[in-house]
């Protein structure tokens, strides 16, 4: 078992890549690429489940670590590991992969090979971002994750794929230039890209504070665009409109939010504290702005995009409230968002496949013809709104209550307004698509409710929404070990005003 623990992360990382190579080598015949991709992603999901099963709760810091020299000069290590923060994000990525494959089963009709090969490369890149503990390795995967995404948006865009793809790519690629300079600067000063080493050096004041301000800002900027934080969300709506369902599910939120927690707050707690008031303000503005725009959209992809902006802003609020409860809620809400948005995307993708339009006005009265679709859509919407007993409630409650008690009452009230608006646009969307009189479009096509395959995709997500809402402690226990780990060695030298250091690891070298 020990041998497995020591290599499991490498397997998780390489299996999708191996699947991609296999897809690329096999002939593009019928559904062969689909099957290879499905089996690979299921196997990878199986591997990711090994992590929570053998995760030691009592133990802080990183587990399942692998630390091997990769490149001698500069000293880049293949250093990977997970803690309570990244554990479930890895599992979530693993879960969404087979769901994405199944959701694309019939939607992708041509060049299946390219699609599934790139989709699997994307998985490797995402796993890499979540498990890398060497900043250069992390940066590598961070950049790599852009490429398959951009190509697939261009290939399968619904209307103007290439334009959306370029927008997406440049929006995220250009801010990573300052990020790379910041990394190089850190390396030039410290001789290390290792997360834990840098964390210790920075907290002990080994680097000049004036320069660290800029370094931290470069990190924050790159992450804020990726999340996206208002007003850097220009790419989001176009990407959601054009991207294939399987990719839109995975693109927003997770990577940027995780990086904020781990690499902005985790590495630069002092600078993060200084930036927090601005980010809180931007997050609340983003919540309200996203919600208001979602209310007036006529296209359901754009509606979901602005809804996502609103929800991701809520998570940003939880992160930069800088409270443990807020962080618990934020991490949990990242998971929720992945599950709920995944389900909504799959459902809307099915509607789009059947009716070939994303104009909400064309729909209406589908509940009678597609009862299963309607039921699942309502469940997902309610979870998104934050109905108690469903998962969205737990995260939203934790974030809002921590903001109320730990940050400021007025911001909390403003944020709650955003949540209420969220209920408005989601319920209105449900009402316009599924209820009311049947539209011409709905009557023109025969009833074609969810098939077995589609139910197989959605049922687990719906069950998860319920279980995560009823028994959050299953997840929360391990998340908490990541969010407030036992105190760092030597932390007594810290000034009393400094934050307790979250998300830390043990220094290896």
């Amino acid at each position, binding site marked *: 078992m020990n041998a497995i623990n020591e290599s499991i992360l490498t397997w998780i990382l390489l299996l999708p890549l191996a699947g991609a190579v296999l897809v690329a080598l096999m002939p593009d015949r019928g559904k062969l690429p689909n099957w290879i991709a499905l089996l690979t992603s299921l196997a990878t999901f199986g591997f990711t489940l090994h992590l929570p099963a053998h995760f030691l709760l009592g133990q802080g810091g990183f587990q399942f670590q692998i630390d091997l020299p990769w490149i001698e000069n500069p000293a880049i290590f293949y250093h990977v590991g997970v803690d309570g923060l990244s554990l479930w994000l890895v599992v979530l990525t693993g879960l969404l992969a087979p769901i994405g494959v199944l959701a694309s089963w019939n939607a992708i009709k041509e060049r299946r090979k390219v699609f599934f090969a790139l989709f699997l490369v994307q998985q490797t890149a995402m796993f890499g971002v979540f498990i890398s503990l060497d900043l250069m390795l992390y940066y*590598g995967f961070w950049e790599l994750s852009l490429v398959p995404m951009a190509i697939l948006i261009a290939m399968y865009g619904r209307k103007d794929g290439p334009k959306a793809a370029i927008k997406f790519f440049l929006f995220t690629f250009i801010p990573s230039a300052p990020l790379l300079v910041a990394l*190089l600067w850190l390396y030039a000063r410290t001789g290390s890209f290792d997360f834990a080493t840098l964390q210790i050096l920075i907290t002990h004041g080994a680097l000049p504070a004036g320069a660290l301000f800029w370094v931290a800002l470069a990190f924050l900027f790159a992450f804020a665009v990726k999340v996206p934080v208002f007003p850097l969300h220009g790419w989001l709506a176009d990407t959601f409109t054009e991207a294939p369902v399987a990719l839109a599910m995975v693109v927003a939120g997770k990577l940027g939010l995780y990086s904020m927690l781990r690499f902005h707050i985790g590495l630069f707690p002092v600078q993060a504290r200084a930036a927090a008031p601005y980010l809180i303000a931007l997050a609340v503005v983003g919540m309200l702005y996203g919600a208001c725009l979602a209310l007036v959209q006529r296209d359901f992809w754009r509606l979901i995009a602005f809804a996502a902006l609103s929800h991701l802003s809520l998570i940003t609020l939880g992160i930069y409230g800088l409270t443990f409860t807020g962080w618990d809620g934020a991490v949990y809400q990242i998971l929720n968002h992945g599950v709920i948005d995944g389900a909504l995307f799959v459902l809307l993708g099915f509607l789009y496949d059947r009716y070939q339009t994303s104009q909400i006005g064309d729909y209406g009265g589908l509940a009678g013809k597609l009862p299963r679709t309607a039921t699942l859509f309502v469940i997902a919407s309610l979870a998104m709104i934050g109905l108690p007993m469903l998962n969205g409630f737990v995260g939203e409650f934790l974030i809002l209550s921590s903001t109320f008690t730990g940050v400021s009452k007025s911001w909390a009230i403003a944020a709650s307004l955003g949540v209420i608006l969220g209920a408005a646009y989601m319920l209105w969307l449900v009402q316009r698509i599924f209820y009311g009189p049947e539209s011409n479009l709905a009557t023109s096509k025969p009833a074609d409710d969810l098939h077995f395959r589609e139910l197989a995709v959605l049922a687990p997500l719906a069950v998860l929404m319920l279980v995560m809402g009823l028994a959050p402690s299953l997840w929360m226990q391990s998340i908490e070990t990541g969010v407030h780990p036992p105190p760092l060695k030597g932390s007594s030298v810290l000034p009393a005003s400094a934050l307790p250091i979250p998300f830390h690891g043990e220094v290896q070298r």
Partner: protein
Amino acid sequence: MNPVPDIFRILPEVILTLTGVAVMLTDASLPPHWARRPLGWVAALGATFALWASLWQLSLPQGTGFYGTVETSAFTIFFHVLICGIVLVALLLSLDTLPADSHHQGEFYALVVFGAVGMCLLTGAVELLLVFIALEISSISTYVLAGYRKQTGCGPEAAIKYFLLGSFATAFLLYGVAMIFGATGTTQIYEIAQLAASAPNHSLVLASLALMLVGILFKVSAVPFHIWTPDVYEGAPSPVVALLSTAPKAAAFALLLRVAYEMFPSLHSLWAPLLWIVAVLSMTVGNLAALRQQNVKRMLAYSAIAHAGYLLAAFAGLGNSGIAAASFYIAAYAAMNVGIFAVITLISGYNDERPLVADFRGVLYRSPLLGSLLIFFLVSLVGIPFTGGFFGKFYAFTAAVGGGAVWLAIIGLLNSGLAAAYYLRLALAAAQRPADAAAATALPAPQVGIAVGAALLLAVLATLVLGIVPGEVLHAAEGGAHSLQAPPPSIKVPGGFVRGLAVEQPPAP
């Protein structure tokens, strides 16, 4: 220690010369209607042997031959291997893509090989007259190759432009050589280095540095000496551009490294800011101009200018790190640039002067293999991790940051973000669904022959190796840097010269 026979010091050049002569004579003596293609294989074989001979030179002790005019060191071997490799790939590419009815195929192969002789000699020469001769050998071959397609289009115009401007630049270089000879009374680089160090502010030394920089910067197509580049790239046949854009540049950069770090290290404070400015200008002008290009060959010409700028950024680094970074970058750039021109040759044909971005639409559908390779090389040019382009930029900007030029790194990385826009435009056009799918699939997919397949395989492997396990190559580049910086073996400073510097200082003991 036994002295190394002089001939071993120039073994690769000897092999290449013999190959070239053999190819040319055989071509002249064969009956006109016989196929010339086998001569290409002979030339490729010669390049392979030369490559092997360069590697064999590793077993020689570092030192000079032929009265201190030619050097063998880790530095020269690095560039010999690189140039022979590029020439080999370019020959393999030409073998399958030169039109079969061309009457001058034999000449073509001979010219390529003779060009390689000049470039190899240029990297090994440590005596300025030999430098000049080597530069002329390489230039004259490339002038002829640029105008190889003399009947059609802008081929002749390109060749004339290249020839006139190139001769002009070489004249500058020669003038610089004359000045430094006037100042020091010698043309041996080690001796000049010692003498120049003793009087760094001598006006003749300064003038010589400036003139030589002009000559070399022209060859590497750095702004403001870049005007010829787009025209030549457009007019020359694509396989020739694959060669022109890489091998002579590698040789010229080797010369620049030698002039900067071996001949005038004492003037570092002078040339470093100059190159800093040229670097910024080159990348910015190159990228801005490339953004507007519709012609892929012109676009890549401007991209080559921009890459010269990134490469010059490495010169801001201190000593070894700068040299190693620059050497590595050249290798990475050569791998991906040869690769992309090979793909372009295959897709748009040997003759196409104006392959437009729009013509590449749907390439991925017409030929999945070539489409994927095109995107792969473009991704590497963008500088995405796990490709050679990334580590090239990485080392160059690490060197710059290490040398204190943080701003240069920031400008460079922002520029690479800008550059992503036009590379991506091409990549995404290739990925996009063709406007008329039926017509596009009806077009025959370009045939990939054995020779060109081998060329592509070499380029892909090189790009991947440089991106995933760059350690070995970087190690070799560092070895080269050490050998360039090492104090030269034994210098006899001439005491007999009476003019210029020699007067101002006593002869060394």
